[in-house]
């Protein structure tokens, strides 16, 4: 029933009113209605013009700025990193320099110490040598003195002894003649043998 009404509608539309393509309730749906086609083109044209001249440039500008901001931030970060690296390197250099210097100072001190020790040792040795030398000289002098004294005393004692034995003082005579000295010199040079003393003592007895 409806089919007939539609069919008659189509007939009516085509025969009586001759409606434009796509118009009317009985139009074939895949045939475009010209006003809609043109209106759609105009609307899209306006919209495209708006997008192309306003929207996309604005957004792309924001994107560019964003990229620049990110890249700028990264550049700043890189710079800060480089600065930090430089500072670190400088610090490390200073540190190693300080270490080297400390080592150098230590080495120097060690050398100096060794030198001082060596010097001191030398000084002490020379001092000791000097002291020893002095002592030797002193001893020698004292020995000399003792010998001189002894010689004198031996002479006195022996003359005393001899005076007692002989019964008179020989002191002046022996001093005049140098007998004791000569005797002692003879004794030292080995010119006097003990036998002779024995013989004289036997003879004196």
């Amino acid at each position: 029933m409806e089919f007939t009404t539609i069919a008659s509608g189509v007939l009516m539309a085509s025969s009586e009113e001759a409606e434009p393509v796509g118009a009317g309730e009985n139009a074939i749906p895949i045939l475009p209605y010209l006003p809609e086609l043109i209106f759609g083109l105009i609307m899209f044209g306006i919209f495209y013009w708006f997008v192309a001249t306003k929207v996309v440039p604005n957004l792309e500008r924001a994107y560019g700025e964003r990229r620049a901001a990110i890249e700028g931030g990264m550049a700043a970060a890189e710079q800060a990193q480089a600065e930090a690296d430089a500072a670190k390197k400088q610090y490390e250099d200073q540190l190693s320099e300080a270490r080297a210097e400390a080592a150098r100072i230590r080495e120097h001190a060690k050398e100096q110490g060794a030198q001082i020790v060596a010097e001191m040792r030398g000084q002490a040795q020379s001092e000791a040598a000097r002291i020893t030398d002095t002592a030797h000289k002193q001893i020698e002098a004292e020995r000399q003195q003792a010998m001189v004294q002894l010689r004198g005393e031996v002479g006195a004692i022996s003359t005393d002894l001899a005076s007692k034995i002989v019964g008179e003082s020989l002191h002046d005579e022996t001093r005049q003649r140098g007998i004791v000295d000569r005797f002692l010199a003879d004794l030292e040079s080995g010119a006097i043998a003990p036998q002779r003393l024995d013989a004289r003592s036997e003879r004196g007895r």
Partner: protein
Amino acid sequence: MAAVGLVLPMAEEGESHFPPTPGDFWQPMFAIPGTEYFFTRPMALVLIATVALMVWLQLTTRRAAVVPGKGQWVTEQVYNFARNGIARDMIGSRDFMRFVPFLFALFTFILLNNLFGIVPPFQNPPMARIGFPLGLTLIVYVVYHWVGLRHKGGVGPYLASMLPSGLPGWIKPFILLLELITFFITRPLTLALRLFGNMFAGHMLLVVFIVGGWYLFKTFEPGLMLVAIPAWILGAMLTVFEGLIQFLQAYVFTLLAASYIGGALADEH
């Protein structure tokens, strides 16, 4: 006033008969003076969609900032989708920037017009009128052929670029014929009809379930009124599904447009 006719739901207009017919999509509002033509409701919807898109984009990108606000963020998501997901992937990073405005405009234009199919009080997808998808297809058609001719340097090289290399000589005419049919007939036809058909059929389906439920309910017979409820539930589910399809069709249309442009710009077939 025009706005009154604009917000009238489809159901009122189609009330005189239940099974919706293609004629339901014929919704004249007023005669254009001096012509035999009418200004139709889909045209008004396209106008509203265009103005709404322009206002939204103007508000969110006028002062596009490095750190986006909420509105700008939403716009950027859609823009990035069209720019990187469609244009750059299909055309390649060398040439895509030239076509980003076109593809972004195409995508948003179709998407919002499609979504009008389920958004109250509009609830009628303009793309269910073949005139609108056909207009967009014509633009795409001209663009990709123009780009191909410019890039290949003339009609001869452009036709030659349609042939795959390494074919035996005798088969070339046949392949060229097939390619010509593809380039000049199949592509625009399918591009326009795919969008139109999806919107058209999807809208019919929604009308069937929602208006059909209403007709069942209107009988005030308990049994039929009960049946109306699952019809409406199905209608609601189909509305969600239809939303997905509306997005998908906008995506597919833009993707194919980008693909045709990318193909025209490709150096080797």
